[in-house]
């Protein structure tokens, strides 16, 4: 579970950055912005799920609430 999430996020970041460069060179800046946003949103959804899982485990471990 653990290591491939990091690779997934890094891959999304890398791909969006490269697509950004390509689109900027072919002067389609607004599409480049959209691609960056799409990459950011998907990664944020993944990371938020991970943090939610972390905080749930913390809650059960510490017996809070």
């Amino acid at each position, binding site marked *: 579970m653990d290591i491939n999430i990091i*690779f997934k996020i890094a891959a999304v970041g890398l791909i969006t950055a490269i697509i950004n460069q390509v689109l900027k060179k072919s002067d389609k800046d607004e599409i480049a912005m959209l691609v960056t946003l799409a990459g950011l949103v998907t990664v944020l959804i993944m990371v938020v799920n991970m*943090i939610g899982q972390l905080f749930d485990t913390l809650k059960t471990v*510490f*017996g809070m609430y």
Partner: protein
Amino acid sequence: MEIFKIAAIALITAFCVLVLREVKSELAPIVALAGGVVVLLSVINYFSDVFSVISSVAKKAGLATSVVTLLFKVIAIGYITEFSSSIMDDMGLSSLSDKVTLAGKLIIVAVSLPVVVQLFNFIAGLLA
């Protein structure tokens, strides 16, 4: 052992962050955050072992269970505050991380007030 896995994960995360910073992507700090969460998730069950031992020892020592649960709650709040404020320091937002730290301190003080009052009453009882 466990520590090798954690060191490997941390190293790989660091490399990914460097690569992403190279291509100037905004996801570099997010990869760092994800790496931190993964490392934490792999050691979280050590926490529960330690805490079950501590609570059993405290029970033997006759401590009130409310005090022990409060201690665990304060540790948890302190840890979460430190976790988020260090991430914000990573991203360069030191003002935000100071605010989170202040909020964490206030919450800890607020949560531990009843025990302090209990302590004072106990002392007053002794003196009177």
